[in-house]
């Protein structure tokens, strides 16, 4: 035995003697029938419709899982800075698109989709990718098809493209160039669609490793009145709902040839003058990182609104406006105690609003009553994802 080994052995022996002594001393005071506890590990249910997932963001790794009914934390999915998480619609897995380097911040770059079991939250496998964008706080850079079989990972290297992953075979299958477009949505049976810098929507029909790209006619002004790229996609209606900086609301029917309906102004829907791009026009405007959410069964849209001038599109909302999209009416306005930056809504019969702000506090509000059900400190300050099982 070397000198070092002897030292380590001696240290272990001493540690064990102290531990054993402590156990014996406690055992003397304890009831005779006490069974010593063992360390074990909890499991959780598959994703439930009342659960929401808060990305810790730039300052806090991990995506925390909360139950909106109880306000309790259920567990955490490992997400590092700038990772994107998606939930398997079949409820079996959590998928994390992420990037690491072999030596921390340097060395060999590795991009991957990491797969976690939804009940144990244990690592299942890693699917290597040729690349992905580094940005964070976006819902639509990593999306899963409605049937849960395919993932689309936006890449920017800085050429613009999409990497396609077969989630059944757990394998990367194709890289498709997508010049001038980003912000993805599923397009069932076709491939995916995306928004483009010319104001159009691109649809990519994926055939094997090739993508056939078509565009709608331009319908929005990507430079002067952009659509927020954290828009909403409704799997049941195959419909996307878009919101622009000034407050125009568009709905698009997603198919091989998507169609976009004429927009309406959220301010006009509330009976006030529409938002404008001109300076010195102070008005209610949408804002935040994730400024809108849609409750698909009722067609209600929830938008974070603030008072300000144009080009304040990242500013947190001081109110939530509830919009009946089909009727083009703002039916309710919720005043917020603290400004909120991200919003999501549960797809349950009694919808709950989930929000967080710069302080990383998460808020749960009952849509029907406006009552604050829970406030969770240090929940995380970035994107909120909801469970929406098939």
């Amino acid at each position: 035995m070397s000198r070092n080994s002897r030292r380590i052995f001696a240290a272990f022996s001493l540690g064990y003697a102290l531990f054993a002594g402590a156990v014996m001393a406690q055992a003397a005071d304890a009831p005779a029938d006490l069974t010593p506890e063992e360390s074990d590990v909890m499991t959780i249910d598959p994703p439930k419709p009342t659960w929401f997932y808060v990305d810790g963001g730039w300052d806090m790794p991990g995506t925390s899982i909360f139950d909106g009914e109880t306000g309790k934390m259920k567990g955490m999915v490992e997400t590092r800075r700038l990772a994107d998480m998606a939930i398997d619609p079949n409820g079996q897995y959590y998928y994390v698109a992420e990037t690491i380097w072999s030596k921390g911040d340097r060395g060999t770059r590795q991009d991957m989709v990491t797969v976690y079991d939804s009940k144990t939250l244990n690592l299942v496998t890693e699917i290597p990718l040729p690349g992905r964008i580094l940005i964070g706080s976006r819902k639509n850079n990593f999306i899963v098809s409605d049937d849960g079989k395919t993932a689309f990972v936006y890449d920017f290297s800085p050429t613009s493209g999409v990497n396609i992953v077969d989630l059944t075979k757990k394998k990367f299958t194709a890289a498709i160039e997508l010049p001038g477009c980003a912000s993805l949505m599923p397009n069932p049976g076709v491939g995916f669609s995306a928004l483009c810098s010319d104001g159009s929507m691109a649809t990519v029909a994926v055939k094997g490793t090739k993508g056939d790209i078509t565009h709608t006619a331009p319908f929005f002004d990507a430079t002067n009145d952009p659509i927020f790229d954290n828009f909403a996609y409704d799997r049941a209606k195959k419909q996307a709902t878009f919101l622009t900086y000034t407050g125009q609301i568009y709905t698009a029917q997603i198919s091989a040839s998507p169609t976009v309906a004429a927009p309406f102004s959220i301010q006009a829907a509330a009976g006030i003058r529409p938002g404008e791009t001109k300076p010195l026009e102070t008005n209610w405007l949408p804002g935040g990182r994730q400024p809108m959410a849609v409750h698909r069964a009722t067609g209600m849209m929830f938008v974070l609104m603030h008072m300000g001038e144009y080009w304040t599109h990242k500013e947190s909302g001081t109110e939530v406006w509830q919009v009946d999209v089909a009727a083009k009416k703002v039916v309710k306005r919720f005043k917020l105690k603290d400004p909120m930056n991200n919003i999501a809504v549960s797809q349950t019969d009694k919808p709950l609003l989930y929000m967080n702000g710069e302080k990383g506090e998460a808020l749960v509000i009952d849509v029907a009553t406006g009552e604050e059900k829970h406030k969770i400190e240090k929940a995380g300050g970035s994107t909120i994802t909801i469970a929406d099982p098939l």
Partner: protein
Amino acid sequence: MTKFNADAWGEKLLRKFAGGSSRRSMLTRMGAALVAAPAFPLLPVSRAEAAKPDRSPEAKTVFARSAQTKDETKCDYWRYCAIDGALCTCCGGGIHSCPPGAEPSPVSWVGTCINPDDGKAYLIAYRDCCGKPACGQCGCDNTDRETQLYMPQLNNDVIWCFGTTSMEYHCSTAVLVGAAS
């Protein structure tokens, strides 16, 4: 200062890359990206040239109306009209200089900002400094003419550390590129 010419600037940039890089290098790919994005630096320029610039208070954004030209370590310094991140001027660097040991990204997002001293608009390249942990000092997020990801050259959330030895984001500079109008 000469008037900003997007084509000449792009060509100069690409020639610089081509001269100092192998054919398959990251920089060559970035050149392709610039070529593939015809809208790249043209948009702020063409917008500025489309009409005679109006610099009255009524035509200025909230940021431009209150911007100052004295202190580069404050978020309201005029060049920071579309910056997002930690100011390199607060991290041991300068307005166009990376702090020691950090590496400037050769590509960037851009902003068109008005200098209140002369009332003119200038094209500003927000080049990230890379290869060190986030500096964390003087965090700013200004959003004049800042758009979304489908127009990445005008989006201030993208980590622009391309072609650098490490993609870790440290801080952001605001490099004066040319006159925009």
